């Protein structure tokens, strides 16, 4: 997890003064998380790597403008999120324009009721299940996906997520509810079939 408490005022002073070692430290500390965000957002290793590199190139250039009293975490994630969103716009311009206005509810589907509360952990570790987890993320609209990834996967607060995306907290909350429920529905559909085949196979 990337948290502001990991960056001391002294570190931020060195960073903003252009200290290369401090920048290297920032990269070491944060790049696994930034890459993880990009990879889940784009579902493509090459694109995620491009976003990763662009994020730190942009960050390095922008460091002199960094407001020392603001959050370094939010600042870095904002650069990364913008890079990822730009990549998506570049790759799928049509889909993006359809998705942009995604805050209206598409029908009131009944939630899936499948009782996989007690599904053993080992069921979740399979390669097939892990692929399914990413596919469920891919099916979220861009707007829902980025909110879910920042808040629930990266572990940021609703406020931080709102700051990063430049929307208000209620928008984040609404999108988060919809993303979580959609993912739960998707997972339930998948586990329904797993549970059925388990019964059939004894």
């Amino acid at each position: 997890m990337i948290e502001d408490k990991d960056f001391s005022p002294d570190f931020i002073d060195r960073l903003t003064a252009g200290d290369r070692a401090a920048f290297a430290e920032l990269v070491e500390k944060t790049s696994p998380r930034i890459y993880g965000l990009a990879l889940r957002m784009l579902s493509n290793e090459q694109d995620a790597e491009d976003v990763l590199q662009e994020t730190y190139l942009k960050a390095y250039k922008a460091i002199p403008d960094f407001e020392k009293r603001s959050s370094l975490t939010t600042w870095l994630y904002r650069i990364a999120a913008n890079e990822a969103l730009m990549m998506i716009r570049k790759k799928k311009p049509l889909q993006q324009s359809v998705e942009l206005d995604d805050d209206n509810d598409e029908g009131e589907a009944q939630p899936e009721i499948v009782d996989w509360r007690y599904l053993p952990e080992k069921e979740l570790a399979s390669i097939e299940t892990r692929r399914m987890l990413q596919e469920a993320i891919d099916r979220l609209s861009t707007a829902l996906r980025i909110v879910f990834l920042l808040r629930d996967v990266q572990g940021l607060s609703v406020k931080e997520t709102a700051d990063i995306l430049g929307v208000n907290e209620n928008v984040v909350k609404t999108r988060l509810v919809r993303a979580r429920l959609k993912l739960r529905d998707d997972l339930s559909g998948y586990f329904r079939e797993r549970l059925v085949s388990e019964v059939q196979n004894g």
Partner: protein
Amino acid sequence: MDEHGHCKDYLKNFCDFIDGELPAELCEQLKAHLAECTNCTIILETLKRTINIYQSTAESERLPEDVHSRLLARLKLDDDWITKGS
């Protein structure tokens, strides 16, 4: 079991409930409902588990070694004097 409309009203509070942000009064109402509604209990518990599953996939995150070295090269941070310190 409650009629659908009733359960649906509770459904939209599940996330606040999970995040510990549901006002006390609504919280008590929801708990009372959960005590007698199996469907909502299943939905709530699988919702929690969905979030946990995704959180745990992120915990063990590492940057692949080749991605890491290409990043350092691109940023010109692969000189010895910089990386030796960390």
